[in-house]
């Protein structure tokens, strides 16, 4: 198997999960209502858990450093997350829309990976299926509710959807290893995933009564997968690693 290709896939998945998990956890304690505060925080925790499991595969199967080191001691340039997950939490409508767009992509990606030839990844994909099913259910319920709520809630959801879409399409930025991954049966590829996602998301958005934004190819925000990030990732990493940096060798 092509190690570089697989590591690239694992890193981008792990980094996406870690960064969105960290971002969403910023709502903890200040969520719109107690029940939602708890639900959103719990899902954020799940995401960080997924990143831990992926870093663990990178560590045990490919001999890279420990998960904590991979999460807290890599530079911004070494991160492979898409720019969608880096954006600040904004107002709740944006965080919900991002959660909706990202989690559907994640759910479909793991679904494809249940048949991966990389066994630990296929096993993880099966293990997290239930968790992600709830994440998607949560996102869909909120989308439906707010798209049919007040005029303001509908307008806010639509505006955030329009804003997030060019970033969301950046999730599917192709790597140099697409053909290798597909050929070795590790992963079905970003193009296939994007196709499945677009179909799924369009269906839910339209049923909810919102408009699916049309995005020109030129407007899609790529770069994250190659280490080119928005201005927000650096400050996120600084904040996230503030405690570890005091003493990176400390035992927890």
């Amino acid at each position, binding site marked *: 198997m092509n190690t570089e290709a697989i590591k690239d896939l694992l890193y981008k998945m792990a980094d996406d999960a870690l960064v969105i998990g960290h971002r969403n956890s*910023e709502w*903890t*304690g*200040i969520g719109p*209502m*107690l*029940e*939602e505060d*708890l*639900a959103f925080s*719990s*899902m954020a925790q799940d995401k960080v858990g997924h990143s831990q499991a992926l870093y663990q595969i990178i560590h045990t199967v490919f001999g890279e450093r420990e998960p904590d080191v991979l999460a807290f001691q890599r530079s911004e340039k070494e991160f492979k997350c898409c720019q969608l997950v880096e*954006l*600040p*939490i*904004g*107002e709740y*409508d*944006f965080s919900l829309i991002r959660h909706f767009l990202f989690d559907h992509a994640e759910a479909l990606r793991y679904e494809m990976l249940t048949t991966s030839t990389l066994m630990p990844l296929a096993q993880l994909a099966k293990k997290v299926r239930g968790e992600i099913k*709830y994440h998607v*259910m*949560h996102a869909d*319920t*909120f989308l*439906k*509710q707010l798209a049919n709520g007040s005029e303001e809630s509908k307008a806010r959801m639509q*505006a*955030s959807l*329009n*804003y997030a879409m060019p970033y969301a399409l950046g999730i599917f930025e192709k790597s140099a290893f697409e053909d290798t991954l597909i050929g070795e049966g590790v992963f079905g590829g970003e193009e296939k995933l994007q196709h499945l996602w677009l179909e799924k998301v369009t269906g839910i958005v339209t049923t909810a009564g919102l408009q699916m934004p049309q995005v020109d190819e030129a407007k899609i925000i790529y770069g994250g997968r190659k280490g080119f990030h928005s201005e*927000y990732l650096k400050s996120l990493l600084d*904040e996230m690693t503030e405690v570890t940096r005091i003493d990176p060798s400390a035992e927890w």
Partner: protein
Amino acid sequence: MKSNTDNITSSPRHPITSLDPRINRLDLKRVAEGEQTASHLVTWEVFHQEKRGKQPTHAGIVHASTPEMALMFAKEQYARRGKTTNLWVVKTSDVYTFSSEDEEIFETTPEKTFRDPGFYKVRERIEAYQAKNKI
């Protein structure tokens, strides 16, 4: 359009500075000025079922606007730990109860131990035991 992030990334005239960056991002001045309003949602009673076939037991309440939202919140609120097979939600206003003034109708029930399922079967043995041990 205006970026979603504009409000968040900088708040130069912050009334409160906290060690917790999340608190600083809150922009509490806006809240104090009443820009955000809270609306009250109805409550739903949540019942938790541990195993298939087992009776669901009352776990607590959630606030939500629809049954779907109530179930969604109940999952994280009451099924985060331990084993769960299902949850039920019932709108609180659909639950009928006696008036608290009528509580006296239950008053003498605890005395009617002859209604306990084990009463007749073990009564004699308990009495014999009590007599023997002078309890």
